[in-house]
């Protein structure tokens, strides 16, 4: 089981994601460089990390979406590979059209770094299978543009297809004004997941307020991949 963490110019959570995959989950992990279009099939899961790719200039994720590596990521995702985009990674997935919707600046117009409470809406994904729907996770956010937007039709579709994976627990917990308190969504096929909160920041009890709820997300991926491996007789 092997993880790949993509580094774009301006990514700044790439090492944090690497740390969780390699040191906390103890899985083989590579850093993947943005300049090379390459065959990604050796990876079982790709992480698009947070940060400010290309300075977040113009729109978050807009320029990164055209990095050579993104062609490979799109192929990889279309072939069913697992992709998780965290914060800026989520924004890039939206710009790349791998997930529906778009990101606006936070309603407060301010960057916000704080723990938020999330409700697991769909526990039947490779990213949440260790949770139960209704579980409450405490995971920090850190972003200035996390105000998720999708039109009504699109929202109805997300709901109908159970693509909303995590929601901020309430209006009060919603740090950015996202429509329907959406914090994270997946594609219809369930193999691509994007979320604004940072699970890699709460995967070890020593950090911050001690929450390890982020670990559940990564552990879900590992569990999903192990099961899939067994089924394939690996």
């Amino acid at each position: 089981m092997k993880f790949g963490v993509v580094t774009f110019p301006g990514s700044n959570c790439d090492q944090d994601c690497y740390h969780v995959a390699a040191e906390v989950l103890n899985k083989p992990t590579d850093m993947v460089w943005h300049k090379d279009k390459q065959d990604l099939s050796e990876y079982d899961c790709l992480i698009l990390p947070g940060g400010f790719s290309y300075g977040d200039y113009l729109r978050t994720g807009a320029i990164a979406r055209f990095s050579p590596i993104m062609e490979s990521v799109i192929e990889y995702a279309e072939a069913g590979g697992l992709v998780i985009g965290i914060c800026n990674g989520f924004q890039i997935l939206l710009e790349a059209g791998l997930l529906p919707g778009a990101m606006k600046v936070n309603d407060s117009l301010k960057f916000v770094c704080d723990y938020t409470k999330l409700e697991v809406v769909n526990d039947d994904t490779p990213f949440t299978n260790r949770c139960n729907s209704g579980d409450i996770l405490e995971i920090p956010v850190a972003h200035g543009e996390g105000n998720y937007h999708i039109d009504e039709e699109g929202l109805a579709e997300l709901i109908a297809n159970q693509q909303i994976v995590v929601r901020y627990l309430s209006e009060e917990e919603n740090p950015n004004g996202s429509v329907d308190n959406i914090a994270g969504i997946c594609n219809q096929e369930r193999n691509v997941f994007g979320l604004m909160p940072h699970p890699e920041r709460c995967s070890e009890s020593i950090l911050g307020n001690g929450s390890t709820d982020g670990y559940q997300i990564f552990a879900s991926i590992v569990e999903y991949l192990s099961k899939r491996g067994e089924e394939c007789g690996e």
Partner: protein
Amino acid sequence: MENKPWEAEGLTKSEYEMIVDILGRKPNRTELGMYGVMWSEHCSYKNSKAVLRNLPTEGECVLQGPGENAGVIDIGDNQAVSFKIESHNHPSAIEPYQGAATGVGGIIRDIFTMGARPIACLDSLRFGDLEDQHVQFLFEGVVSGISGYGNCIGVPTVGGEVHFSAAYQDNPLVNAMCIGLMEHEDLATGTAKGVGNPVMVVGATTGRDGIQGASFASDELTEESEEDRPAVQVGDPFMEKLLLEASLELIKTGALVGIQDMGAAGLTGSSCEMASRGGAGIELDVDLVPKRETGMNAYEVMLSESQERMLVVPKKGKEDLVKQIFDKWDLNAAVIGKVTDDGMMRILNKGEIVAEAPARSLADDAPEYERESKKPDYLEEAQSYDWSQLEEPQDYNQALLEVLSSPNIASKEWVYQQYDHMVQTNTVVLPGSDAAVLRVKGTEKGLAVATDCNGRYCYLDPETGGAIAVAEAARNVVCSGAEPLAITDGLNFGNPLKPEIFWQFEKCIEGIGEACLSLGTPVTGGNVSFYNESPEAAIYPTPIIGMVGLLEDIEQATTIDFKDEGDLILLLGETKDELGASEYLQALYGLETGQPPSLDLDLEKRVQEVCLEAIKAGVVKSAHDCADGGLVVALAESCISGDLGAKIELVSDLAPSSLLFSESQSRIVISVAEEDLAQVKKLAAAKDIPISELGRVTGNSLVVNDLVNLEVGELKKEWTESIPTLIEG
């Protein structure tokens, strides 16, 4: 201008004559410009050097003291920490967002120039009265500038302080501190040597921004400053993130002789400082410098303060390696000259010499002044102010709420929520505690960092105020479970040519020096910012202390919040009748006067030792330094953070106001499990420090004698909502 060419460059006539002497001829405009910036206060420290020599700079842990881009200390396991503080006051007064942002960018560059990966920033801020609209504009702009730059580059801003006082009305202070981590062998220096080695400029292209920035920072703010527009630089944190990665990668290759960031005085400062340190000369051609604008002359190229650039001297033959690494990160790298052996800075333009001067004379031979110093008249009257004539409050609940909602005491969450304080996943103790604590991945260790300074104390008693700043910073670090190691100082003062200001400066340094010696925390570097004055008056003398401490075991990181119902609350140290210069006088009576609290450094040291020993013994559940606002504020903060109440019985013959709000130093509030009381008492007895049992953690109200009885929820509301309400109405 024709007959007084020195004035345009901020030099005096006698300085001009010195230059003529050095060169043996009249300088041309480019040369004069180079002397102007290098001999400015900002670059040469000409008015402060003599006094700064009195600071203790040596210690077991010091690997690099003052003189380089930043200090470096040893933290064991072949690891070292580089850290420094720097001011960006004047740019922030004019353009708060960009001023603060480029301040953060500058200090981060100083740290990775040393070969260290920046792991955290702190910001120490001072503003005028927060009810004033212009102050709000400055405050909001500065905070979002720090947030904009630090968040983007991915260095967490984990701590700092904000104080408000009319003394800073037109002259806010913006000091940023950065700390970085490295292996010993990666320590890089800003040295140019080895005849024939290439000199390269890497990073951003050069434009006309910030020309004369360095001499500008050394002038008093005037109405015209608002017109000095080109002096404002715009930062590009994205570019700096790339520069950071590329520079660290380059340093790791071992191909470098020296590396230096281009901060104040741009290419001039970096090249002549590097040459001077190496006892060498540098020859460079401004035509070869990659530029953003057309038609720039030599003067402009040499004095530009465009951000996100570095000067590097690789070993001969390694030019292509440098280019290759910078190309990987989409950055420029261009050879612009070479190291020579004649000690001269020789500037060419398309091969023709346009300026030539001894590097040493620019970098190190600025005149040094011993300024006149005089004790100010205001002091005696202020210090003899008798607060006991004030009426005691009718209602101590109300008094506590008023102090808690003073913006100086109130929660700074509104500020640090805008900072990414968790990126890099090392933040073990989050902002809002006494010091931030960071883990050092791959080890058991941790680092604690804090900044402190009470400008009001320094105004009313500079020597004690300076010493208290060090003591409080150390206390904050100790309360977090760390051993204080060393400091950096950000010295913000008014115009040093005024004898009263210079006296404040001398006295503050004296106090800082004494405290550093006594607490064993040497000064490894810092920054002097003079001329912080507006037409009305100078700012309070504000020597900000940035302290770094080491935890051998990160599991011992301690926070301020009460943890468990039933725990005992103890006070290490003793409350005295010391309301002078307190937040209480300010919040209730609008008074910023009186004799500041006294400081017994010997007692301070012992109190800190006992606290740390108890933490290391594993018996301390919470520790909180008792400072601004006094004992009851410390108790309230521990209640609020822990969402737990406390029942406190204070026995004393002090007046209730003093009992609750006195700001006596050398006090720490800790909470322990009942069964550990004896052990803590033993530790205290061994060091002969006062210790008293204050009460217990219990319920959901803070109750102190029959004076205070308030629900924690109400305390919390008052404390957290104060700043947002003031700003957002």
